[in-house]
């Protein structure tokens, strides 16, 4: 069962509109496209990406489960797995410093649980 799934997964990912290579590039968001690049009130759009993951010393049960699955599938090279998530936020803002401050607050108060998670903010324009 696992083996089958393993065979299928890469195919799905290749055909998936959100294919991983594009996650890394800004052009996925058509940031050059003026129609998308302007907020409702005419402000320039910025994108903030917030990465959230467990703090290094906190148990990452999901990461451990992935790691043990990898081990059982024969990927013995992998020594550890820590997983996390990211959020993309489209901002109607012009002042980068002010946007950064607000995203920092959002990341701390809402997107992450600062008791056990770390976050990192990237602003892209």
């Amino acid at each position, binding site marked *: 069962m696992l083996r089958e799934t393993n065979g299928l997964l890469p195919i799905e990912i290749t055909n998936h509109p959100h294919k991983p290579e594009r996650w890394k590039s800004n052009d996925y968001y058509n940031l050059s496209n003026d129609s998308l690049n302007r907020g409702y009130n005419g402000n320039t759009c910025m994108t903030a990406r917030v990465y959230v993951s467990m703090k290094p010393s906190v*148990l990452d*049960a999901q990461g451990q489960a992935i790691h043990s699955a990898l081990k059982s599938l024969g990927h013995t090279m992998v020594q550890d797995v820590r997983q996390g998530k990211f959020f993309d936020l489209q901002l109607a803002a012009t002042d980068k410093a002010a946007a950064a401050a607000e995203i920092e607050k959002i990341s701390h108060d809402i997107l992450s649980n600062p008791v*056990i998670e770390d976050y990192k903010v990237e602003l892209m324009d």
Partner: protein
Amino acid sequence: MSSITPDLIARNRLTQSEYEKIVSLLGREPSPTELGIFGVMWSEHCSYKSSKIHLKKLPTRSKLVLQGPGENAGIIDIGGGYCIAFKIESHNHPSFIEPFQGAATGVGGILRDIFTMGARPIAVMDALRFGSLDAPRTKSIVKGVVSGISHYGNCFGVPTIGGETVFEPCYNGNPLVNVFALGVAKHTDIFYGRATGIGNPVIYVGAKTGRDGIQGASMASEEFSAESAAKRPNVQVGDPFMEKLLLEACLEAMKTGAIVGIQDMGAAGLTCSTCEMGSRAETGVEIDLKYVPQRETGMTAYEMMLSESQERMLLVAEKGREEEVFAVFKKWGLDAVTIGTVTDDGLLRVKHNGEVMAELSNRALADEAPIYDRPHNAKPYRANAPFDAPEFAVSTDVHADLIRMLASPDLCSKRWIWEQYDYTVRTNTVQGPGSDAAIVRIKETGTSVAMSLDGNGRYCLLDPREGVKLIIAECCRNLSVVGADPVAATNNLNFGNPERPEIMAQLVEAIEGMSEACTFFETPITGGNVSLYNETLGEGIYPSPVMGIVGLLPTAVPVPMEFPKAGLQVLLIGGLRVDTNLQRFGGTQYAKNILNTIWGLPPALDMDYEKRVQSAVREIARAGLAAASHDLGDGGLGVALAECSFGGVGAKVELDATQVRPDLLLFGESPSRVIVATADAAAVQAIAQKHGVECLRLGETMRERLQIRNGASTLVDASIAELKGPWSTSLETTLAS
């Protein structure tokens, strides 16, 4: 030059005089690692140094008690070659810092305490205390705690079958999360946390060690301050699926016969498990940290010894049979490694990188912590509660009062909480949440075990001694209502800072009251937990002892709380017992919700009468005479009658107490009263008479309405929907707003 500075001593939460005692016990200065080990073992949480001399006053024995306090859980014989292990434990401080994980690991910790004894966990209950629902953090704490409990319990596969939840402003900055767990085992399968057999291997099993919750035990022994926020990384994260594997692996490994002792690594992790197992067996334990499975690199001996990573166990196996144990753990995909041996020198010796990092007497660590007889010659702290009753007008509309009370956070339906729990997993739940007592069936013996959790901070604030007695009486009454014989108890003592004499006085009074009532009701204490320093910014909680009492009964169709049909006689076993002394009304839910205040004393309890009421009620239930039965507790007669009506069948009640104020009549909380609905009033009356208790006819059940008349005046006349609506939606609506 000494490496031990006063600052380091303080950071390990030891006092100067405790440090001096360590130096004199060792005959030398401790290393920083050793100081850390003493710091956790001598913390309030692990050593009970402030409560120990008073806990000795509690009754701990009966012919059914197989194991009393001092082990991971108490054990009671239930006949047929089987026994039950149960205990309650708090996770208050972690649940304030990180509600979800704090509550989840609270469940995980107590489950390990149960299966360490060789018992399979079959039931969990929770006593929760939150701040006022309009305080800023309360809603998020409630949601976090409840989903943390459901996450851990549901994933692990143990039913959460009951509990109680109270809201009071004194818990705004210090919620209480007390988790009770119960497991079942054969007599022959019980295991103890003892490192016996010189030369036997000491084996580490379960999850890997990380830097989780370092010094959690000593954190739990401090008051919260604004700086606590900075201590946040102390919180541990649990993995219930790992715990399920650990449970199955441990129970299977125990069956090999190769295991001689086992203990879970809870508070103070590796430190506590090694020295306690050694101390109980009067042996030494030598471990080498290089063998400890580690999740992170570069951990120091100090960090490994103090880590509170979850889902770990320490066991001692018979020498030469390690492979049998390893094979079981390998099958379940868990780490199992020999990390040391049992020695004959009584010392805990910890090696790391070829160096001896600690060499300490197990006895000194586990049993020779300082014992404090803290001053308690003050009057117990009462916050702002006066002794005398204020002038308050006789209620002119008890009908409206009743509806308001039913919608209050303490009395309203807690369905929103318990519907998040799996309360039927394992298919043995005879009676689940929302009833007087929860019941699970023990298939192996064909009998059942009933259990009830109860606490009342308001009563205990007004009189800690009498308050505790009332709690124990209520717990036993809850069990009697379903026909169970109360047999044993576990206690969770949640109090403020014991260094304040007026708080210490509360603790001493409560323990003495508990001793008296547990002796009287023949429910010895088989274990429990003490949680002190429950204060935030100098503001203490109400004294909040929580009792968990278990009872035994034959498996039978459970007695419901709700009236099943119209035309049944409604009787009040114990009688009206209206107390017209207004001083005794100040701790009631009416005083809290309608008058917004607290004063006086808790309701008066006559333990002898109470016991007779319980015997009568038990006999009525067992004889199958009760079509419905419900004890009168918070909110008194009015609230109890409403609760009995929520199945859609109400009652027409006619009282003849016209000389009594209607608010006292309906909402006084005198104990020793139980409503019974029956088709055979004469038989019930005969049983009551036999036990020498009053049996008052209240009226008759009828469809869809609850009417309460007193003489010529109508006190309540409501459709069931009118009463049930606010009761059933109140909590959910408040939490959603």
